[in-house]
């Protein structure tokens, strides 16, 4: 009952005309960046972070939530019509969706994607509504050692899950942790790793790192690799809308996708990609028409699209309740909270209920706005792709300049943008994941504070780190995350080698 009254209070915030306006802006922007290549929700929110200086927190977060969800809607559109997934979470949608579009069933694919996103987004938001306060209550019992263990788990799982190689994942993580140590130590006031430069005393700005690694790195990469490639602008025409049979085949994948997506999104390194793979595999197995998979099966669009939207809601659970970001986008949202001097976590539900419940309520309205924006107007969004590529990337660089220069009009930030942009380019070429850098940068200093706090309380007794059941089990899981995948890979290699030997001998 309590949750319902809180939620109604949230709707009172979200339905204010000014907040509806921001939600609309966020949804439109999100859909646009979802359609356009090279820009994602994380980058868009990072570029808009300076706006937080002027807009009140509830409105800003309502806009950011619209961007988060909108990018997923927009990403599915390009996957289906052009076979170019705008976001990593839409890769699976392209498989079946583009086949459907080629058979003249594009409109049906778009409809099942949009409605599936709406259903899953709503289911995920419902789960968030009722779960988040409970988890936040739980977090009240967390001591510093528990928080430290939670962050260690977050570090290892991000480094393991995001990268295709353990070493590269951890290299990215430690790079981020190293950047996080630059500046004044908050506990003793000592300067660390500033190399005699006054501008670095405040540390390296999260926005600069994110914008440089993503936007500049991507621009340099695409320029060097695909500058001459012609823009593939040949959107397929729509065709017929969903038939009764399409509805019958879609609703179960929508719900199953939601059920898969939400919990995985809520894990410390869930993200939106893995649920889409799982959902696709599941639908393929359960389908009554397995022969259609690979030829344009509607289940293969409905399931993964639902899964990635539900996962987006799931990502908000650890972020809002524990202050724990699990994806690049969540890390930016955490940075936005910090810009307002707010720390997401259990206290926030008590101190800023209007903000949090307004944000949650706006997820419901945002989904509805997105459904309206995307179903009838899909043709307009696809037009965005008619903008020549060199203008898109030129524009990305100009807005990256706005984001970086607008922070504090500091020349050092511009120099950092250049240097980190080059590093982002190298990371792109050699397949280093970016998300661990961001998580390391934003969580590293917090993990250090918790560790030092725990050790100070225990009088330098390191056993305190496994002193509570929560911290001990979290650290154990972190160790398992680290050890199990290489072990499995090793066993598989041994098995393969054994077979080879047997074949060679026989």
């Amino acid at each position, binding site marked *: 009952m309590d949750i319902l009254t809180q939620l109604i209070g949230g709707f009172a915030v979200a339905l204010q005309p000014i907040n509806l306006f921001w939600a609309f802006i966020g949804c439109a922007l999100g859909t646009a960046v979802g359609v356009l290549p090279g820009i994602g929700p994380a980058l868009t929110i990072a570029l808009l972070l*300076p*706006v937080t*200086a*002027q807009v009140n927190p509830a409105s800003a977060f309502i806009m950011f939530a619209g961007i988060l969800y909108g990018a997923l809607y927009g990403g599915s559109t390009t996957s289906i019509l052009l076979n170019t997934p705008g976001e990593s979470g839409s890769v699976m949608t392209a498989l079946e969706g583009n086949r459907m579009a080629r058979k003249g069933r594009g409109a049906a694919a778009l409809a099942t994607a949009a409605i599936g996103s709406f259903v899953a987004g709503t289911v995920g938001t419902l789960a968030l509504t009722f779960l988040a306060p409970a988890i936040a209550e739980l977090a009240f019992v967390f001591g510093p050692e528990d928080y430290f263990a939670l962050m260690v788990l977050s570090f290892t799982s991000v480094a393991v899950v995001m990268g295709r190689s353990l*070493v*590269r994942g951890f*290299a990215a993580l*430690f*790079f981020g*942790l*190293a950047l996080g*140590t630059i500046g004044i*130590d908050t*506990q*003793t006031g*000592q300067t*660390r*790793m500033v190399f005699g430069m006054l501008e670095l005393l405040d540390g390296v700005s999260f926005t600069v790192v994110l914008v440089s690694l993503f936007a*500049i790195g991507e*621009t*340099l990469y*695409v*320029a*060097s*690799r695909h*500058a*001459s490639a012609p823009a593939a602008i040949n959107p397929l025409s729509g065709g017929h809308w969903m038939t009764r049979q399409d509805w019958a085949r879609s609703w179960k994948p929508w719900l199953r996708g939601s059920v898969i997506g939400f919990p995985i999104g809520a894990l410390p390194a869930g993200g939106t990609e893995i649920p889409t793979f799982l959902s696709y595999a599941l639908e393929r197995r359960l389908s009554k028409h397995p022969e259609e998979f690979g030829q344009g099966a509607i289940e293969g669009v409905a399931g993964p699209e639902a899964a990635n939207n539900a996962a987006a809601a799931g990502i908000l659970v650890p972020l809002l309740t524990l202050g724990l970001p699990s994806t690049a986008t969540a890390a930016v949202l955490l940075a936005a909270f910090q810009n307002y001097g707010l720390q997401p976590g259990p206290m926030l539900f008590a101190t800023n209920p209007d903000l949090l419940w307004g944000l949650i309520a706006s997820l419901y309205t945002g989904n509805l706005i997105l459904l309206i924006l995307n179903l009838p107007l899909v043709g307009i969004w696809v037009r965005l792709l008619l903008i020549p*590529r*060199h*203008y898109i*990337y*030129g*524009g990305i*660089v*100009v*807005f990256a*300049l*706005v984001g970086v*220069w*607008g922070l504090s*009009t500091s*020349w050092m930030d*511009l*120099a950092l*943008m*250049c240097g980190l*942009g*080059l590093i982002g380019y*190298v990371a792109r*070429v*050699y*397949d280093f994941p970016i998300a661990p850098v961001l998580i390391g940068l934003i969580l*590293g200093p917090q993990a250090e504070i918790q*560790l*030092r706090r725990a*050790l*100070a309380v225990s*009088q*330098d007794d390191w056993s305190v780190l496994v002193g509570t059941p929560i911290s001990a089990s979290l650290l154990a899981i972190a160790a398992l995350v680290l050890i199990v995948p290489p072990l499995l890979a090793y066993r598989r*290699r041994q098995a393969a080698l054994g077979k080879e030997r047997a074949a060679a001998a026989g």
Partner: protein
Amino acid sequence: MPIAEEAPPRERRSKPWWLGLALAVMGALWLNGARGIASTTNYIGLGPAAIVLAVGLGLVVLGVLLILQALRGDFRAVDDEAEAPPSRAAFLLALAGVAIPLLTMRWLGFPLTAMLAFALVTHGFGSRRTALDLAIGFVLGTIAWFGFSRLGISLGGFLPLLG
């Protein structure tokens, strides 16, 4: 274990050992930096140097591991097998667009800098309509300057040279 004979010899196959080296050097920098941080000998807990030391150690170890992986050929550029080699000219033009603000931002202000950066990047992407690109870049920069100024975000003077 990957067996060397399995991989066909490839002309352009890169061995990016320098990447691991760069990481290890960064780690060494951090290790050295940790020495310079005066340890306020608190009677309890960790000092401010401890985490810097740990991060430096981690970077050195990961750097060495990366070097070993690179020399074994376990990892290389993602598009080593791509048909077209990367275009250095396009890359340098785009990089110039990113670097030009370092020179001009404080003298020419945001709109003109945005104009130059925009034109350089679009040329990196193969556009050759210089006048049009400059015009679009200037308009974009000016709109951004006015728009964000109204939101209360300072992007510096419009044209600092004029004061």
